[in-house]
């Protein structure tokens, strides 16, 4: 803009400033002719859109259950090697809800613990909310066409506490603190997470420390013999409870209790788990209970046929 000859009496008004633009017939967005000629000599190439990363979710229309499992298990629809995950995996199969497995670990979970389920995204704008294992039973009952009715037995809670405490604690000792650690926990939980020996060592120590802390909550000393004795008693009690019935509490179809029992019995009887059981006390206790072995076979045949 040229300098104003008389700034005091004639201050520049907004109407006078755009004069140079008005002088041009077209807008400033038009490319000047010489530059346009230059650009016309180069062809404009549009590249195709990149593919999604390999790990991006593909099938957003399916339920995805995130569990501890390896790639082979994901492809073959096998069983998770974590009792907590396997329980819900089996329960969803009993409910007849279709779902896909995904390999995951605790850090991926919103609640900090596996399993969790990601339902299909119905609205593109609204992401689906993951469902933690605590709410999975109610969700499955809502979604299932023929929901599994849980047995209305006053002993249900009592026998469930045998599983959730006695057997679970013996399992914790057996997998993380006994010699099974090198043959079960190490190949399944530690080696896949990292290739660095020091990271592996740290994870191993943390796992063992966490298991010890969990066991020390209920007794000042972790007494292996006592834990094993109580678990053996618990398996014997479950055997008696099952009796000659097909499913627990004489139900028509397997339910959550069957899933909970199966989660432990299947993993204990599975010879191909990790590098195999070395400390076989718990495994022997299940092998002695013929009813529980048959119960596991029944579920395996009916619901995990593809493995």
């Amino acid at each position, binding site marked *: 803009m040229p300098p104003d000859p008389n700034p005091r009496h004639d201050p520049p008004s907004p109407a006078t400033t755009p004069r140079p633009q008005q002088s041009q017939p077209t807008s400033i967005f038009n490319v000047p002719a010489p530059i346009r000629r230059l650009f016309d000599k180069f062809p404009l190439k549009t590249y195709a859109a990149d593919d999604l990363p390999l790990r991006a979710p593909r099938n957003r229309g399916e339920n995805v259950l995130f569990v501890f499992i390896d790639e082979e298990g994901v492809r073959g629809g096998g069983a998770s090697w974590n009792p907590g995950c396997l329980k819900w995996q089996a329960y969803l199969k009993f409910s007849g809800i279709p779902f896909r497995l995904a390999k995951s670990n605790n850090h991926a979970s919103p609640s900090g613990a596996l399993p969790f389920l990601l339902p299909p995204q119905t609205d593109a704008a609204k992401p689906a909310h993951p469902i933690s294992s605590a709410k999975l039973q109610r969700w499955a009952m809502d979604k299932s066409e023929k929901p599994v009715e849980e047995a209305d037995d006053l002993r249900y809670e009592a026998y469930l506490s045998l599983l959730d405490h006695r057997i679970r604690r013996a399992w914790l000792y057996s997998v993380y603190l006994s010699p099974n650690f090198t043959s079960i926990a190490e190949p399944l939980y530690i080696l896949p997470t990292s290739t660095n020996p020091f990271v592996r060592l740290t994870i191993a120590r943390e796992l063992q420390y966490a298991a010890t802390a969990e066991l020390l*909550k209920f007794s*000042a000393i972790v007494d292996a013999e006592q834990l094993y004795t109580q678990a053996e008693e618990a398996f014997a009690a479950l055997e*008696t409870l099952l009796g000659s019935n097909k499913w627990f509490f004489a139900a028509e179809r397997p339910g959550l209790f069957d899933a909970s029992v199966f989660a432990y019995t299947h993993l204990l009887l599975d010879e191909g788990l990790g*590098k195999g059981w070395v400390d076989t006390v718990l495994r022997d206790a299940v092998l002695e209970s013929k009813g529980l072995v048959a119960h596991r076979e029944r579920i395996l045949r009916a619901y995990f046929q593809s493995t």
Partner: protein
Amino acid sequence: MALELHVWGPAFGLPSIDAECIATICYLQRICPSTGWRLVVDAPSSSQGDLPLLVDGAVRARGFASVVSYLRTHRAGACDLDHALTHQQQTDSTAFAAFIQFTGGPLIDLSLYVSAENFRNTTSSAYTAILPWHRNYTIPPARRDLARTRTAHLGLSSLDVSVVGEEDLGLGKGTPGADYEAAKRAAGLPPSNRSGQPPVLSMGRGKGIGGLLSSPIYAARFQLDALTNGLLEPLSDLLENRKYLLGGNEPSSLDCMAFGYLALMFYPPVPQAWLKEAIQSRFPRIQSYITCMRGELLGGEETNAANVWSISTKKKADSGAIHRSSLPWHPQSSPGLFSNLSTAAHEVMFSLPLLSTLLRRDVILHPQGKILSRRVASALPSPLIVRTLVAFSAVVTAALAGLAIHHRRSPRDGDLVFYALRPAIFQGGFGGIGEAESFLSVFANQIARPGAAYS
């Protein structure tokens, strides 16, 4: 050889402050004549293991279940309250014992230990009566911490006073009045009348009744009621209108177990008596069962903590206190001054933050003499490698530190001489005015102070 049962001392008129100890005392009282066993008050530190502990010669059994199974297998059939049960009943007994232990335990933890008001007013004074004075500083806080970790997953830490103290201000949080009061309180001024009122009056402020009910205190109350029902409903259903949980004409080991836990919910005179209120208002069947079992298993007597304390410390020479109690209380073997001192020192060391991690002992008892089917080689670095690495880096660190200290203590004698400043500058050439200037200033310094090149 007489059986010797070590338990936590009596409290609240009950023979012990611990549920499993009460259960074990009831069981032994029921099956053994009072001359056949001795009851000893003990207070082990956490590294020494749990009570109850049954000592039979060289054999030790810890915990109610172990004591019962030990007595069942090693003593004659008369020493078994469960001999009349069917197989199915025995199985149920195992399941319900686990159920009571793992559902009732957290309730007692919450009521007696986690709830700050109850702990301060009732539980800690009960411990004072049964512990030597110096152990009051370590054992009750340790047991409270344990109870906290056991109930952490329930998310009920709002019962703890340090948390509630902050959160009860949260009712009208965000309003200018509440902020003003909080600031006043922080400054140590007495609150004005309005906020000095009980919290009921602040109900409508900010959130309405929904907000009030979802405030920590009331939300906790709902959750506590749900937990209480979770334990008492199945028990009440199991009991029906019978006298004992498993029917029959005699109490079973399950009755002892249930009484141990229910008594600690019902009898302690706690200020926040939600457990007792729940039993009284909603489960009258359980209430009458508790009173009935107390008469049946303990003869309905109140255990006086002071009497038992005088027996166990042998202060009062056998003055009839033993005869008044139907339980065979005996003095504990006196540990002596040295042992007392070492225990105290031990506990102090273990409660220090850094030392306790360094001195942590192995708390895992592995089964002995078991033959493994095979060995699997670990892919992790072996302990030998790790130890070598740690030792090596420790040696290197120590050497460096020693060198540094040595250098600090005895600095070098004589002058330190720097050479070869000038050739470097000449070789570099005169790249610009700045470089020429710096070169000139070096030159000037040397001219001004001939000794400047030496330090």
